[in-house]
């Protein structure tokens, strides 16, 4: 348990794939100043440096069906851990200006990770990866999303999807060229119009405030292919810990066919 948030993550290769192209991280970000001794009487200036801890949660799903996809997601996650920990240096005292800058820094970190993924390929076609990243500074979760991994949250028993899949099928529905039913049957559901490493990378930035009892879920599409929203809501509402929720959802994805790698990260707000 970290700073009022019970967090757990797991990834599984699934039942049909030879390798796991998903990666995830769960990390705490802290101030680095560690006051050992001082002659100062007033130590209040140091209080903020012991202040709230930020959490970084990332899920990335490599695209391509070969080792390149695995490398892309690994590279993206590593790059983000590096860039976001720098950007989050001011997280304990957000005024309006600082918060706008922080949001821009998060988006900038994703753009840098995108460049890092593109650099893998040298002169060949680069691999690509989805990315769903949440930087959590209680009670606010800052979300940057690219591709078709998802962030959802359960609030007052109601499951809401925080992200929109950046697939060609969704784009066609938006344009009025396909109905939702047609899109669901279309092979375009597997084609991303935006991903890290791809020619097009469109980060979407958002935020949401949490209250105790809320549950946040990040997942790759290996979960949502096999487990519907109703079942996800049921698991998040009834299981007692993030670890139990995560394990139950991964098990459900495998029981449902396990046709893809599956990654789940759950954060349960405990106040």
């Amino acid at each position: 348990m970290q700073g009022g948030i019970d967090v757990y993550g797991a990834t599984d290769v699934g039942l049909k794939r030879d390798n796991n192209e998903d990666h995830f991280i769960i990390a705490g970000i802290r101030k680095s100043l560690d006051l050992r001794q001082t002659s100062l009487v007033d130590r209040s200036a140091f209080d903020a440096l012991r202040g709230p801890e930020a959490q970084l949660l990332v899920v990335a799903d490599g695209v391509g069906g070969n080792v390149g996809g695995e490398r892309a997601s690994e590279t993206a996650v590593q790059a983000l851990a590096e860039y976001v920990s720098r950007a989050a240096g001011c997280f304990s005292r957000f005024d309006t200006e600082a918060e706008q800058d922080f949001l821009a820094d998060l988006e900038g970190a994703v753009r840098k990770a995108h460049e890092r993924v593109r650099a893998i390929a040298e002169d060949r076609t680069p691999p690509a990866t989805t990315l769903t990243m949440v930087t959590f500074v209680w009670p606010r979760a800052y979300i940057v999303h690219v591709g078709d991994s998802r962030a959802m949250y359960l609030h007052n028993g109601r499951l809401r999807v925080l992200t929109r899949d950046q697939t060609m099928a969704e784009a066609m529905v938006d344009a009025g060229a396909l109905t939702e039913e047609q899109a669901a049957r279309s092979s375009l559901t597997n084609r991303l119009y935006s991903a890290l490493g791809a020619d097009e990378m469109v980060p979407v930035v958002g935020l949401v405030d949490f209250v105790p009892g809320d549950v946040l879920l990040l997942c790759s599409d290996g979960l949502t292919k096999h487990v519907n929203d109703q079942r996800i809501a049921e698991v998040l509402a009834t299981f007692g810990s993030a670890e139990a929720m995560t394990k139950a959802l991964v098990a459900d994805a495998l029981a449902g066919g396990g046709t893809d790698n599956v990654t789940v990260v759950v954060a349960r707000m405990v106040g």
Partner: protein
Amino acid sequence: MIQKKVCMVGVFGTGKTSLVQQFVQSKFSEKYHSSVGVKIDRKVVDVNGSAVTIVLWDLAGRDEHEDVGASYLRGAHGVIYVADGTRKETCEQIADLRRVATAAAGPVPGLIALNKCDLVGDWKLSQADEEALRANGPVFRTSAKSGQGVEQMFLAMATVLVAPTQGAR
């Protein structure tokens, strides 16, 4: 660079997200997506030769489950209240939304987007209703679908936000 936080506020389904999308990306989506939390976009505009970054906070609409998130409004420099001309009740809530926003953000500039003017034949508003809306701020007729009035509305907000205040030094 000057940076201003502008919140989009209104009842669900009035077109807040579509207005932002039309302004930032010159696009309109046929599919309705209910927003969750806040979606953030930014656009740099030119106001009298100065570059101004408008950071748009698109707040989830008020509905039977959720009220407008007051915590998201704190620190806003301006608020755009969005109403749907085809749904009179969305206009009737503007005064209350303004009260909520003012309590959270203070007396910051606000203006009203009276949206869906491409459907003006289906509007349920009388001239008097539209006049009454002006008690809450300047009213811009907009269409997120056609783009009519959208650029003008956002530029008007940007201009107001950087205008010098009488008495300020």
